[in-house]
């Protein structure tokens, strides 16, 4: 295809992605499906969007219902249809009242003439033929039906008008014969289906044909919210979530430490555990921490009211009420008995749009699987987490799993594979006690503790206690307390022993010092004594030789004789000098 087919967006969330741009411009699109499958809503929503977004007028020809009925049905959506009906969307009531008598064949020449006049008058770009099958069955003749369908086609082509035709078709395989050729005639065929699964109505949409264009094949869930129809288009194959390195608190410091500094902004966290393992408490703590940082937060709970949740959390020191009052925190409690997972998704999306939270809690997400099919719930859970991440909301969801095996979750909603962080809470029962244990099973992109911690709930909130491992067993509760007390006693004893030993050593040291000092004094004294003795001796020698000289001089003795005879005297003198 050299040139791509011009398309026009429908404004129906998700559908433009499936059809890669919307409906074909200047062509005809057939919407087929059973009663209540959403054909009319699709067609009307398209007209409303064209009128509102592009100021394009349109005509809605109603064959099946009266225009009054259609307006009443459309009033459930926030389209502002009455205002549009005054100037942009023209409703033509083509539904034949039962009082009308039929006699012989008729054709649509008149109707098309009327439409032409109206189209020229208001400059309509789009025409919807809603429930054309109702009119065609009145023809009571397959040949006539075909003829009239071709008449419509030729008229549309001559008037260069884009059209949407809706027709009832029961089931998916048992096509009404007449519509098979209609499918060849039109350029785009969209199938709608409504089916019951476990007592919950599920709506599906599928593009069956799109001439000259590729499209996303397959069946996709449809939901109806205040803005109209919403198609659960598949997530883009490529995930383009930004990866923030900003950390935020998971609720309390010890848990943040275990997570290597907290949760990443925009990440998703899953908390699994059997009932009663404090999943809600952790979720509440996370929400409270977010509010304390001044971040808008959304707390979604299923099957439990906001009031009891706030009361219960207050008993463990988590106070959400002030934040609800300040408008920072929005609490929403949903029922799960009768609503399908798809409807929850729509509701939550609109809540996110409304409240614009930065942090969000869904407690428990597993509740959405209670009604309707599990596969639908899985699909919704996945899309929910992805769409929340698209909004860069940091989300914490809880899931109840049966049994203590965290892997049991994987057979349930399968959120664990897409969650960035997975915290598992369990019970350990020993010595007549049931204690809560917290383990971080995974946390993407961050170091995290591999330790099992005991989760202790106090009046001031949850805290994590170290667990003792003794002989390969984890000690919690009383056993942990005993172990802690024992450890404390041991510490005290060790400290006393140390003090004592230090005292002894210090005393010994002091003693040694004292002895060194005494010895040094001895040394000084001995040296002094020695010096004294040496100088005395010298003095004596000097004085004696001086005396001999004096005596010699006085006696005039022979010096030679005297020198020889006094050899020993010299030696002594020498020795004395040496000793000095």
């Amino acid at each position, binding site marked *: 295809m050299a040139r791509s087919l011009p398309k026009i967006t429908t404004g129906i969330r998700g559908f433009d992605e499936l059809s890669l741009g919307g409906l074909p411009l200047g062509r005809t699109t057939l919407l087929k499906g059973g009663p209540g499958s959403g054909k009319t809503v699709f067609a009307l929503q398209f007209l409303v969007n064209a009128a509102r977004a592009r100021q394009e007028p349109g005509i809605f020809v109603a064959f099946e219902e009266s225009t009054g009925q259609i307006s009443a049905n459309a009033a459930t959506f926030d389209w502002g249809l009455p205002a549009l009906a005054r100037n942009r969307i023209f409703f*033509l*009531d*083509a539904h*034949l*009242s039962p*009082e*009308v*008598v*039929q*006699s*012989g*064949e*008729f*054709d*649509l*020449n*008149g*109707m098309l*003439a*009327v439409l*032409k*006049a*109206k189209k020229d008058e208001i400059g309509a770009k789009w025409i919807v033929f809603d429930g054309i099958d109702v*009119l065609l069955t*009145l023809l009571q003749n397959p040949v006539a039906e075909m003829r009239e369908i071709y008449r419509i086609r030729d008229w549309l082509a001559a008037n260069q008008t884009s059209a949407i035709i809706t027709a009832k078709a029961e089931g998916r395989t048992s096509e009404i014969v007449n519509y098979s050729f209609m499918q060849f005639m039109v350029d785009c065929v969209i199938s709608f289906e409504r089916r019951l699964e476990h007592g919950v109505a599920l709506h599906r949409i599928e593009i069956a044909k799109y001439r000259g264009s590729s499209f996303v094949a397959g069946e996709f869930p449809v939901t109806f919210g205040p803005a109209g129809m919403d198609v659960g288009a598949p997530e883009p194959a490529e995930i383009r979530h930004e990866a923030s390195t900003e950390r935020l608190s998971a609720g309390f410091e010890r848990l943040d430490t275990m997570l290597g500094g907290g949760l990443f902004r925009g990440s998703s966290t899953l908390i699994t555990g059997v009932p009663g393992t404090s999943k809600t408490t952790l979720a509440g703590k996370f929400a409270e921490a977010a509010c304390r940082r001044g971040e808008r937060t959304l707390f979604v709970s299923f099957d439990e009211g906001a009031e009891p949740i706030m009361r219960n959390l207050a008993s463990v020191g988590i106070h959400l009420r002030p934040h609800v009052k300040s408008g920072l925190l929005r609490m929403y409690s949903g029922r799960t008995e009768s609503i399908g997972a798809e409807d929850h998704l729509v509701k939550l999306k609109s809540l996110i749009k409304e409240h614009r939270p930065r942090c969000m809690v869904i407690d428990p997400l597993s509740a959405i699987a209670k009604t309707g099919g599990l596969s639908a719930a899985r699909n919704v859970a996945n899309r929910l987490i992805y769409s929340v991440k698209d909004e860069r909301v940091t989300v914490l969801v809880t899931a109840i799993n049966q049994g203590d095996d965290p892997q049991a979750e994987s057979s349930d909603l399968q959120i664990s594979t897409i969650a960035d962080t997975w915290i598992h809470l369990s019970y350990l029962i020993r010595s007549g006690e049931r204690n809560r244990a917290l383990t971080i099973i995974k946390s993407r992109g961050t170091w995290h503790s591999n330790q099992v911690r005991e989760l202790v709930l106090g009046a001031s909130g949850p805290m994590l206690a170290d667990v003792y491992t003794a002989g390969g067993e984890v000690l919690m509760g009383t056993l942990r307390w005993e172990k802690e007390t024992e450890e404390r006693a041991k510490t005290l004893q060790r400290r006393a022993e140390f003090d004592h030993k230090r005292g002894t050593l210090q005393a010994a040291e002091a003693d040694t010092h004292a002895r060194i000092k005494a010895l040094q004094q001895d040394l000084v004294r001995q040296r002094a004594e020695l010096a004294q003795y040496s100088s005395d001796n010298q003095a004596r020698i000097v004085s004696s030789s001086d005396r001999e000289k004096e005596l010699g001089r006085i006696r005039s003795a022979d010096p030679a004789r005297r020198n020889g005879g006094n050899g020993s005297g010299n030696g002594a003198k020498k020795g004395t000098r040496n000793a000095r």
Partner: protein
Amino acid sequence: MRAKAKGRRATTTVVVMRLYIANSAPNSSKAIANLEAICKEHLPGAFKLEIIDVLEFPQRALADGILVTPSLAKISPSPTTRIVGNLSDRANVLHALGIKQ
């Protein structure tokens, strides 16, 4: 607009009708022929018929709530009736118009 007023008979009530046609489309031509035959036979001089070409006067048809052609509307006497089709089923038409055979 081709308005045809046929003969009058003072003794019986005049049946006022409008036939909406699409120019010379086969069903429209058939309807005119069928209706004229019925009137000639059952309402000689006691009817008033207005034939409206929807292709020419679409706004008129829109105002009257007429979409498929041919369509016959009995305006008076009451009750008003509407018949769609080429009027080939004569018994049906007579019954709807309240004409006793």
